[in-house]
């Protein structure tokens, strides 16, 4: 993020003037960021500058700078609102004069919101007597070459990817299957040559035998036989070519798909979280299919169609160049028209698709919410809504079909124009004995062959662009580097379980921190209960410990080693997780328990299930440990699923155990059973447990109370109750609730 902009000369000069003679100006400029809004909400060019001792602001349009010494400020705050934000200085509480009231220093648009969030954080560090490090990483999601925006989370610019390089990469892929490429091209060439034969044969048949009325059966039969054989061979080569192509393109698509899939697995949640699962699915399936088609189309069709076009054109011009010119006369019109028509058709279909999506979404909405619809008696209203939407779609589709129906015949008429000309002029030549009838028929046949490749070429740029986009999207995923990645020389470390958070700051969007300067030290084997209101940062803290994300500032140390230095696989091998929503994969219970330890013996499985309190209910199933669960399998109750998940964690034998609302979805009785299992599991392991139900955490050595991303209280249950703070309030309100429910 850019935090030290170059000030324009005039502003810089005025600033020097303003700072000149200022006591303790702290000459070193730490931050210089644009303030692009006036107080009245107009765009402009203003600046906010911070040194070690003061903040200076030049409002847009103003010449002078307003300065505020840091010692007069208690705290800085970046207030992000809707569409704009403001930098606010809160007064110092010790009352050292100067700013006695809260004041707005600068207004800015959302384009600078992340900058001001960092600036406020940095200024607050300065107020605390610390030195902020100004991280000036250039990447802001904008391509440094062309200035275009890149998709979030990617480092590949779709405009600047080199087309030639892309082709080389596709070719490199294809080269792995060179045999099939050669076969396909050779078969296509044979196919082309064969299709050039029949007009020749027809001409000989007409001019040498039919027109002179020579009833010699043998040569006629020979010619007809040759025609039949040619057509037969054409069909055969076409079939073989199709098979070669299918072989080639499927092999390529498989290569691509597995490359994409492998990399998606490696990518961090930070990347995956910014995209819909649908988008990634599309890249794995739809885009690779698109590339597959492209290879079909480009690698072989282009060779064949090119050959064909040149071959036919040469033959036509050699035969009768004047007629050839006539055949080609409508060509420019055809090509131009094709371009224009395609633009319009694409627009029409785009609009239709969008409406289709809308109808689809509405239908899905109603179907998945059908219980609500019925419960509120809204069936008729929903039918009406759906009817209105589909009526809209019908209108657009009707208009499109009408356009389409008019367009196609017009199109073929224009394409045929050359044919009419040839017949008119050719007929005249034949009647004047300057051309033979067979030659004319041959000519017309070739002319008709010509239009296929011509139309193909007209559509080429569009299809080329589409396929290139697909290739870019696919290669982008393949090329993407996970942002949470192993260090250059990652360490492997048998973890004992000592964990230390050092002033950790983190936000899913960097300008909106969810955790602020969290520091905590946990001894090996200790159980930490994490409590706090929803949105206080509990799960985020756990996500960082699991290293699904890296902290923006500060670090997490495990056994004296920075988490980022530990090999990810090694770390995850030693972490065990039980989440609120347990995901069971399609497969047997045994496979699910052994998920992280596929080689586990039945005895180990049973032992783990026993610890988790799952053995008994599993035995009661008709299929025992072989019971199929997951999407199409047996339905397990929430408590049963949870116990399978605990068994999974037991078998995993982690050094650090993470329980994120592990018992929230089960009733109190089941919870007691599960608690017993969990208690077994926690022995001797560092445990972090999140729970809303505070009674769940009664075994915790220490409780950590988070409030708005900060640690508000730490201590045992008794200590925190005695302190009478947030925890005390939470316990009280839950007791009230329980009483309420008991009544």
């Amino acid at each position, binding site marked *: 993020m850019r935090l030290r902009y170059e000030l324009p000369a005039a502003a810089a000069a005025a600033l020097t003037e303003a700072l000149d003679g200022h006591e303790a100006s702290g000459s070193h400029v730490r931050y210089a960021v644009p303030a692009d809004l006036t107080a009245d909400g107009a765009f402009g060019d203003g600046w906010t500058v911070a040194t070690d001792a003061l903040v200076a602001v030049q409002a847009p349009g103003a010449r002078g700078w307003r300065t505020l010494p840091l010692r007069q400020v208690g705290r800085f705050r970046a207030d992000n609102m809707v569409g704009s934000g403001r930098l606010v200085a809160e007064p110092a509480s010790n009352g050292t004069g100067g700013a006695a009231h809260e*004041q707005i220093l600068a207004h800015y648009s959302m384009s600078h919101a992340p900058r001001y969030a960092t600036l406020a954080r940095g200024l607050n560090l300065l107020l605390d007597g610390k030195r902020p490090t100004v991280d000036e990483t250039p990447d802001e999601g904008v391509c440094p070459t062309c200035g275009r925006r890149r998709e979030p989370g990617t480092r590949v610019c779709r405009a600047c990817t080199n087309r030639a390089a892309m082709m080389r990469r596709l070719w490199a892929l294809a080269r792995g299957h060179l045999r099939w490429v050669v076969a396909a091209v050779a078969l296509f060439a044979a196919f082309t040559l064969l299709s050039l034969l029949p007009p020749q044969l027809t001409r000989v048949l007409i001019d040498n035998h039919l027109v002179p009325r020579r009833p010699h059966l043998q040569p006629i039969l020979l010619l007809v036989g040759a025609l039949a054989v040619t057509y037969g061979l054409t069909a055969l080569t076409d079939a073989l070519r199709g098979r070669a192509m299918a072989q080639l393109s499927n092999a390529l698509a498989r290569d691509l798909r597995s490359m994409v899939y492998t990399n998606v697995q490696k990518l961090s949640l930070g990347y995956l979280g910014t995209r819909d699962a649908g988008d990634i699915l599309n890249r794995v399936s739809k885009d690779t299919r698109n590339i597959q088609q492209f290879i079909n189309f480009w690698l072989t069709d282009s060779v064949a169609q090119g050959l064909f076009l040149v071959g036919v054109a040469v033959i036509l011009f050699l035969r009768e160049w004047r007629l050839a010119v006539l055949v080609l006369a409508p060509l420019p019109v055809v090509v131009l028209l094709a371009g224009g028509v395609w633009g319009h058709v694409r*627009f029409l279909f785009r609009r239709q698709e969008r409406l289709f999506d809308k109808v689809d979404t509405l239908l899905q909405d109603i179907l998945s919410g059908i219980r609500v619809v019925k419960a509120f008696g809204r069936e008729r209203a929903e039918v009406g809504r759906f009817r209105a939407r589909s009526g809209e779609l019908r209108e657009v589709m009707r208009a499109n079909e009408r356009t389409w129906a008019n367009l196609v015949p017009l199109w073929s008429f224009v394409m045929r124009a050359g044919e009419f000309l040839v017949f008119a002029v050719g007929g005249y030549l034949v009647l004047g004995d300057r051309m033979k009838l067979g030659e004319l028929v041959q000519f017309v046949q070739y002319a008709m062959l010509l239009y296929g490749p011509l139309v193909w070429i007209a559509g080429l740029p569009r299809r080329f662009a589409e396929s290139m986009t697909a290739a870019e999207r696919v290669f982008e995923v393949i090329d993407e580097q996970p942002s949470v990645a192993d260090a250059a020389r990652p360490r492997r470390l048998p973890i004992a379980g000592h964990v230390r958070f050092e002033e950790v700051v983190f936000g899913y969007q960097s300008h909106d921190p969810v955790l602020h300067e969290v520091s905590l030290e946990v001894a090996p084997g200790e159980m930490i209960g994490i409590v706090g209101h929803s949105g206080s940062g509990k799960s985020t803290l756990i996500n960082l410990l699991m290293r699904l994300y890296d902290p923006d500032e500060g670090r997490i140390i495990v056994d004296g080693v920075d988490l980022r230095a530990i090999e990810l696989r090694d770390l995850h091998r030693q972490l065990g997780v039980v989440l609120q929503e347990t995901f069971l994969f399609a497969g047997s219970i045994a496979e699910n328990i052994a998920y992280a330890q596929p080689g586990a013996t039945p005895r180990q499985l049973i032992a783990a299930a026993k610890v988790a309190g799952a053995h008994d209910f599993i035995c009661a199933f008709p299929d025992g440990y072989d019971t199929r669960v997951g999407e199409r399998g047996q339905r397990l109750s929430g408590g049963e699923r949870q116990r399978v998940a605990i068994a999974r964690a037991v078998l995993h034998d982690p050094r650090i155990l993470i329980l994120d609302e592990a018992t929230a979805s089960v009733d109190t009785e089941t919870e007691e059973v599960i608690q017993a299992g969990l208690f077994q599991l926690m022995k001797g392991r560092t445990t972090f447990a999140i729970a809303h139900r505070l009674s769940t955490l009664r075994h915790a050595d220490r409780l950590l109370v988070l409030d708005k991303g900060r640690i508000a209280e730490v201590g045992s249950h008794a200590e925190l109750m005695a302190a009478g703070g947030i925890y005390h309030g*939470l316990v009280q309100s839950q007791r009230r609730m329980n009483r309420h429910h008991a009544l």
Partner: protein
Amino acid sequence: MSEAKPGANGHGDAAEAAEHTAGHTAEHTAEVRMLAPAALRFAATEGGFLALTVTGGEKSEHYPRINAFRTFPLSDADRYLSLRDAGGKEIGILESLADLRSDQAALLRQELERRYFTPVIERVRSLKEEFGYSYWLVETDAGQRRFTVQSGKNNVTVVGERRLLIVDVDGNRFFVDDYHRLDRNMLKTVETLL
């Protein structure tokens, strides 16, 4: 945008406290306090904020800094305004900006327009879409602006009949009052972005 959605993301201790002691104080918090326009005195503070004094009743209440929220920012921007103290606790709801005296209304309107800063696009000077983003150069009532919008994520939506709400990659917002009045080519591009 921590202040944008006071209820939704739990900004403001008061809202949260109320949530967690639910049951006891439910009757109290469920009450909607409509503020009488005549009882309100807004004043600009030295620091650039808005202060409010509510008179009437037994004693007048003074709030050195308030935040004003639109409850229907898209469909009815000037009605049902939620006024909140610096901690995020709702003081009450003002039914309509038009009920205030004009100088008072101007003060509140300025505060609202700062919070919901959404320039109105008066002219689109250039607009092109490529590679999943549209690039806009526009004249707005707040000045000229260049911005980028990601396609296909509902970043361009129709609000009401013909008004367009556009949210750019940074979270800046723009309105187009009647998008059918855009010229034909722009309209075509906009149609594909919807």
